[in-house]
């Protein structure tokens, strides 16, 4: 590198390192260090795995952890199944103006705060809400129906919140599939099912993977939707973290929880990438 170029490199490289170091890497190391210490007296700490033992020893924590993971997988699968046909429609069937209009319509709701979207579902689903009134008016129910505060309501909200992050990568990858490749599939004797299975889905794989990773991440780390739409006994793991940190002020245990959540999401992201033969650079960049 020439001298000027070297200076330029340093000027560009330093902010990157400061950002990643001070806001991402060191904080996470610090969080890990906090999670492996145990308070043994006022202002006195010892290094131990006590917090992790607490986590593994308490069924409520383990159960919530497993439930959150499973529900997030389910939410991801539902988002994929619901969003895929729509993405295919926008990418391959709608043409011209309709195509760009539908694409925009997909985007616009997500420029609105998640809080507002959740609020909308509350208005729709609660006992005095729109659906309940509608059912009574139609005659399918003779008293107000509470549809809020259960797993289904929460799932509806989770899928809704993540939809964009599934549909957009799917549209982008499927748009790059040439019509003639689909036609060739038919021309050589394929039908709707086999063309989907052997041509469209393999082609859309990078989009499916990146969409699924993001949706899974968002569901796993979601706090608002489970709190507002979920029931009293459908606890989400992020709620545990929040309560340890803010309510009980037990940062050591909270940090251990945070670290478990990070570990879980990393394992699942890494596993998905490995299984599908993708890389983080390809799917996110």
């Amino acid at each position, binding site marked *: 590198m020439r001298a000027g170029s070297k200076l330029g490199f340093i000027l560009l490289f330093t902010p990157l390192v400061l950002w990643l170091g001070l806001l991402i890497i060191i904080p996470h190391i610090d969080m890990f260090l906090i999670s492996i210490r145990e308070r043994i007296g006022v202002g006195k700490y010892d290094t131990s795995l006590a917090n992790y033992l607490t986590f593994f020893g308490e069924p409520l924590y383990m159960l919530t952890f497993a439930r959150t993971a499973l529900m997030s997988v389910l939410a991801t699968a539902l988002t994929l199944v619901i969003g895929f046909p729509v993405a295919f429609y926008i990418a391959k069937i709608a043409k011209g103006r309709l195509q760009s209009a539908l694409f925009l319509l997909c985007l616009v709701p997500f420029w609105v705060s998640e809080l507002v979207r959740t609020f909308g579902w509350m208005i729709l689903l609660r006992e005095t809400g729109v659906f309940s009134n509608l059912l009574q008016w139609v005659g399918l129910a003779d008293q107000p129906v509470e549809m809020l505060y259960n797993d289904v309501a929460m799932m509806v909200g989770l899928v809704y919140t993540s939809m964009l992050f599934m549909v957009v990568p799917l549209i982008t990858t499927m748009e790059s599939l040439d019509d003639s*490749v689909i*036609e060739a599939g038919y*021309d050589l004797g394929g039908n709707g099912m086999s063309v989907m299975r*052997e*041509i469209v889905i393999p082609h859309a794989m990078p989009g499916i993977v990146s969409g699924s990773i993001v949706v899974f991440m968002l569901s796993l780390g979601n706090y608002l939707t489970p709190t507002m739409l979920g029931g009293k006994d459908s606890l989400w793991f992020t709620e545990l973290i929040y309560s340890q940190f803010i309510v009980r002020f037990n940062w050591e245990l909270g940090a251990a929880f945070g670290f478990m959540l990070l570990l879980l999401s990393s394992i699942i992201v890494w596993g998905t990438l490995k299984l599908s033969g993708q890389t983080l650079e390809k799917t996110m960049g």
Partner: protein
Amino acid sequence: MTPQDLEIQNLTKKFDAFTAVDDVSFSVPAGSFFSILGPSGCGKTTIMRMVAGFIDPTSGDIRIKGRSVLDTPPNKRPVNMVFQHLALFPMMNIAENIGYGLRRKGVAKDEITRKVGEVLERIGLPDIGQRKVDELSGGQKQRVAIARCMVLEPDVLLLDEPLGALDLKLREHMKVELKTLQAAFDTTFVYITHDQSEALVMSDQIAVMNHGRFEQVGTGQELYYRPQSAFVAGFVGDSNRWRGKVTRAKAGQLQIITEAGLTMTGNNHRRDLSVGDAADIYVRPEAIRISRSADDLAQFENKMSGTVASLLFNGAASRLILKTESGEEIEVTLPQSGEFAGVGRGDTLHFGWSGEQANSFAASEDFTQVYQ
């Protein structure tokens, strides 16, 4: 009469007000190589996609081996198509690509392996089964795309300008190869192209298409020597063109005076032109003989002289542009036999052509059109 492999009857396709294909009929006998040649937008792709089943005709019929296929969806038609950009499946390797259609038919696994191996052998690429699509060269992809169709033994193979994406040298090579493959598979090929040379080299029969209609169907020689319309004369091969008026018409001979005042005579080739009609006259550069002395040209009806305005050297296809005294420019082929090796700008040459070689048509708008 045995049924033809492909018969098209009064086929018409309208897109709203626009008629893309206008009452076209033709038939292709078994085992022949049939080309549809025309400029882009002439409707040739529409015909092909109707045969493949991707577009429904507005009216008319498509028969394959005597049976109408109008109600047969594309995945059930006994025709296969080589797409313009080949449409090889990038998510599969070569063997999977070729085996795709066989899997759809439910052929047994080892049978598929055998057939794929066989067809790879036939296209001369026996060891590429496990390769990926993007590891192949342009010519190899071409052959794989054809093999992918041929392994299904279709009644008719459709080819949609498959050579368009290749560079010039490879295209020349693939022309010969396609013809050889067609002979080897002994299957009916229907080929569409805007490149006259591809059509002329490979085809048994060529249809020249313009504005949704067939202008002429015939062998390459027929199109070249006896174009039936000004469009065909202009589109197939090169021509000098003049517009003029018929001043004499007698016993199959026409005399035409061009707008610049040149007098030309030519055979009317049984076209209906009479005195006073506006006419366009087409003469190919290679039909004109040049000479240093006027005496060599005694046998020609049309004799002139002019000076060399420029020399367009292009190897075997070299030409001269000669300027007559009246200022007309005429392109003539420059023979590379050595006789004219020293010709340069400003030299005076005599030239002439036989009336048999000139084609005259009633004046039409095709005269001013520039193709390709």
